[in-house]
C-alpha cells in the first residue's frame, strides 16, 4: 500500500473523540464506551487507559501508605514548653547546630542518598562512606528450598562484592588460586598440618594485605578454605551423623547440639562443638525415613567474615519483594466492610464484597464522580 512514506506511529496520546473511540481490551478494568457527560470529556475521562490506571493507582497507594506511616494525621507543631527559672546555658557549636536543626528523617535520608550517589563518582566522598556495603540479593527461592535437602548442599555464595571492588576481588581471587595450589601440595602431607598451614597462610595474607583489600580477600579466603573443608567433610562416613541425630526434636537443648560433634569442624572456636554426651540412642535412629540431612556447618573463617561485616545502609536493609513473594496472589478486600473484594465498582474501580456494600459504596461514589 502506498502511504507516501508516512508511517503511522502508535502514540501514547489518545484523543477522546466524543461519540466513539478505539478502546484496547486489556483486562478486567471496566470500560465505558460512551461518556454520559460529554462536557469536558478529556478532563472527566471516566475510563483512563490501563497504563493510566496503574500510574494513578500507584500514586494513590503511595499516598495512602505515606498517610499510614505518619505520626500525626495532620501537621502539629507543639512547641517545647518554656523552662522556668533555668537560665539558657551555652552550647558548643556542634550542639547548637543539632538542636536548631529542623530536619526530619526524610531530609536526613535524602542527604544520605545524595552523599551515596556522590560516592559512586567521587572517591573522596567514598572514603566518608566507608560503612556502606552493597546489599546481597535475596536468593531464597523454592528451588533453593529443595536443594537444601540434598545431602551436601553447597553453601550459598557470600555477599557479592560491590562494583567498585571488582578489580580488587579479581586480584584477590588470583592470589587465592595460588594459595589453593600451595595448600593442595601441603594437604598431601597431612590433613591436620594442612589446616594449620591454611590458617597461617590466611593470617599472613591478612596481615600483608592493605586494609582496604583485607575484607574482599578474607571473603575469598573463606570461600576457598570452606570448599576444602567441604571436601574433607564429605569424606566422613554419613552413618556417623545419622546415628547421632535424634527424632525427638523437642528434647534438643540447642538445635546444633544433638547432631553430635562429629559433624562439625573440631577446630570451630567461634561456635564450639557440643561437649556433652549425645542423648540416648533410639531404636529407630538408623531408620532411613527418619534421618534428617545435616547441613555442613560454616567454618570459623566464614563465621568471622559474617560477624565482622560492616552494617548495611538504611535502604539496603529494607526488605523488598523477592521472587517468592511475587508469586502470592494479591488479596483484595471490600472497601466498605473488609470482606473479600469480589466485585469492582464500574465507576471508580474500587472493590466491594456484594450488593449490600455496593449500594453503600455507590452513595459515596456518586458524590465523588457524579451519576
Amino acid at each position, binding site marked *: 500500500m502506498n502511504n507516501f512514506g508516512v508511517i503511522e506511529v502508535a502514540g501514547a496520546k489518545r484523543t477522546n473523540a466524543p461519540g466513539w473511540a478505539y478502546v484496547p481490551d486489556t483486562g478486567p478494568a471496566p470500560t465505558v464506551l460512551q461518556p454520559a457527560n460529554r462536557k469536558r470529556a478529556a478532563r472527566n475521562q471516566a475510563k483512563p487507559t490501563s497504563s493510566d490506571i496503574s500510574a494513578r493507582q500507584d500514586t494513590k497507594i503511595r499516598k495512602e*501508605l505515606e*498517610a*499510614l*506511616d505518619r*505520626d500525626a*494525621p495532620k501537621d502539629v*507543631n*507543639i512547641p*517545647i514548653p518554656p523552662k522556668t527559672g533555668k537560665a539558657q546555658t551555652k*552550647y*558548643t557549636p556542634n*550542639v547548637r547546630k*543539632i*538542636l536548631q536543626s529542623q530536619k526530619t*528523617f526524610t531530609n536526613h535520608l535524602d*542527604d*544520605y542518598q545524595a552523599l551515596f550517589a556522590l560516592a559512586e563518582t567521587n572517591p573522596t566522598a567514598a572514603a566518608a562512606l566507608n560503612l556502606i*556495603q552493597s546489599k546481597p540479593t*535475596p*536468593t*531464597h527461592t523454592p528451588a*533453593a528450598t529443595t536443594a537444601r*535437602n540434598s545431602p551436601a*548442599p553447597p*553453601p*550459598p555464595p557470600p555477599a557479592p562484592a560491590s562494583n567498585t571492588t571488582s578489580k580488587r576481588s579479581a586480584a584477590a581471587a588470583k592470589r587465592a588460586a595460588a594459595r589453593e595450589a600451595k595448600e593442595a601440595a601441603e594437604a598431601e602431607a597431612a590433613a591436620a598440618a594442612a589446616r594449620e598451614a591454611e590458617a597461617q597462610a590466611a593470617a599472613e595474607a591478612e596481615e600483608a594485605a592493605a586494609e582496604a583489600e583485607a575484607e574482599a580477600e578474607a571473603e575469598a579466603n573463606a570461600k576457598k578454605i570452606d570448599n576444602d573443608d567441604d571436601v574433607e567433610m564429605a569424606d566422613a562416613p554419613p552413618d556417623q551423623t545419622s546415628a547421632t541425630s535424634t527424632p525427638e526434636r523437642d528434647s534438643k*537443648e*540447642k*538445635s546444633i547440639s544433638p547432631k553430635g560433634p562429629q559433624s562439625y569442624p573440631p577446630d570451630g572456636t*567461634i*561456635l564450639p562443638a557440643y561437649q556433652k554426651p549425645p542423648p540416648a540412642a533410639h531404636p529407630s535412629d538408623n531408620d532411613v525415613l527418619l534421618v*534428617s*540431612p545435616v*547441613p*555442613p*556447618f*560454616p567454618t570459623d573463617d566464614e563465621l*568471622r567474615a*559474617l*560477624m*565482622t*561485616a*560492616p*552494617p*548495611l545502609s*538504611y535502604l539496603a536493609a529494607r*526488605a*523488598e*519483594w*523477592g521472587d517468592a*513473594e511475587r508469586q502470592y496472589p*494479591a*488479596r483484595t478486600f471490600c472497601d466498605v466492610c*473488609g*470482606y*473479600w473484594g469480589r466485585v469492582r465498582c464500574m465507576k471508580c474501580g474500587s472493590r466491594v*464484597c*456484594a*450488593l*449490600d456494600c455496593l449500594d453503600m459504596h455507590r452513595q459515596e461514589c456518586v458524590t465523588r464522580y457524579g451519576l
Partner: protein
Amino acid sequence: MVGGGRQSQPAGPAPPSTTLVLDNGANTIKAGFVTGSRTDAPRLIPNCIARDRHRKTYVASEFEKCRDFGEIAFRRPVEKGFIVNWEAQKEIWDREFFDDKAPQKCDPSATRLVLTEQPNSLPALQAHCDQMVFEEFGFASYYRGIGPSFNAYQDIQAIFQTPREPDTTIDIPAEVMLLVDSGYSHTTVTPLLQGRPLHTAIRRLQVGGKLMTNYLARLLSVRHFDMRNEPYIVNEMKEAACYVSLDFNRDLEKTWKGTRGERREDYLTGAGIAKDYVLPDSHTRFHGILRDHEPAVSARARKGVVVTEDIMTLRNERFAVPELLFRPSDIDMHQPGLADLIMQSLSVLPIGLWPGLLANIVVVGGNTLIENFSQRLQTELLERVPDACVVRVGRPENPITSTWMGAANFAKHEHVERLAVTKQEYEENGAGWVARKFAAGLGVDS
C-alpha cells in the same frame, strides 16, 4: 529510683560505677540504673510531648497526669526508630534525668550511658547522637549499640523453657539466636552469633505499631466514626481488641454479614469474634472498655434509643490490622511478611546456621503482645522451612523491657569495658573514631 553515682570520681581510667541504661524507643523510653551488680527496675517513660484539646502540654512522664485523651496530639523526637529531633529529645531527657527535680536524677559526669539504637541507622544521626551525649550531656563513658543485639545478654533458653540439667552453664551472650523486634516504627530481624549481629542479614519491615494504629483508625473512620484525630484512643483499642488470626479465611468468613438482605447467623451472634468497644466519654470514663458482643445493645443503639455510651462493634478489624505484619501486601505494600522476612534474612547466611537460628527465635517489642503472634509466626515458618528443622518462637515475659534487661546485663558484662568510649577518648579522637569503633562492634574473640 534515684540511682547512685552521685559521688564524684576523678577523671581517669577507673570506669564509672553507675550505668544509665536507656532504651530510647519511639513510643516509650525504658530507663534505669545499674550500679555494681544491682539492677533497678526500668521505668517506662512516654517519649513524646503531648498536647490535649485544652492546649495543655505534657512532657514525657507528665503524661501520666493527662486524663482526657480526646484529640490528643503528639510530638515525637524519634522518627522511624531513630532520634531525629534533638530539641525535643533533649527536653525530655533533661526533665527525666538531669534537672534538679528529675525523677531519675543522674550525674552524667560520673555515669556511663548505654544507649540502644535501631540497626542500620544513618551515619549523620549517629554522629548527632554521639555529639550530644558527650558535648551537651557530658557522660563519662558511653556505648551506643543496636537494640536487638542486647537481647542476647540474657538467659534465652529460659524463655524457651528448654529442659536442662541444673548445673548447665548459661551462655551469656547467647550463642545463636534470631531476634525479631517488632516495635512502634518498624519490625526488624537480626540473627545474632555470640551477641554479635550478622549485619549482612539484618532485614527491616516497615510495619510497626504506628502503622497498625493508623490503619485501624482508617478502617474505623470508614465504618464507624472519624477516629483519625484520636491516635491515643485508637491505640488503646488496638492493644485491647486486636489479635492475630490463626485462620484468616475462616475468621473473615465468620464476620461477613452476607449479601443483600441476608444476615448470617455468625454475624448476628458475633461468633466469638465480634466485640463491643465502649469508647471513653472524657467525663466519667477515660479509658475504653472491651466487652463481648451483645447484639441487643448495638441493635438498640442503631434504632436511635438514647444510650449513655458510644459503642463500636469491632469485627474483622480485630484481626485484619495485625494481619499487616504477616501480609503487608494487603495494603499494597511491596514488602514481604514477617515469615518471609526471616527467610530472606536466612537466605544470605550459610545453611549450617539455619537450624540454630530457627530453633532460637526470640520475639520482642510491643507488637508481640498481640494475641497469637508467636503461634502464627511459628506456623508460617514451619510452612517455609525444611521438615527437619525445629522452629521455636519464644517471647520473653515482658517483651517491651526485654531489650532493656539485656542491655542492663550487658552493662555488667565484661564486653562493655571493651566497647565503651570515655569522654576523654572522644575528645582526643573525635566523633568519627567513635562512630567507627561502635560500628566495628566486638569483633570476634578467637
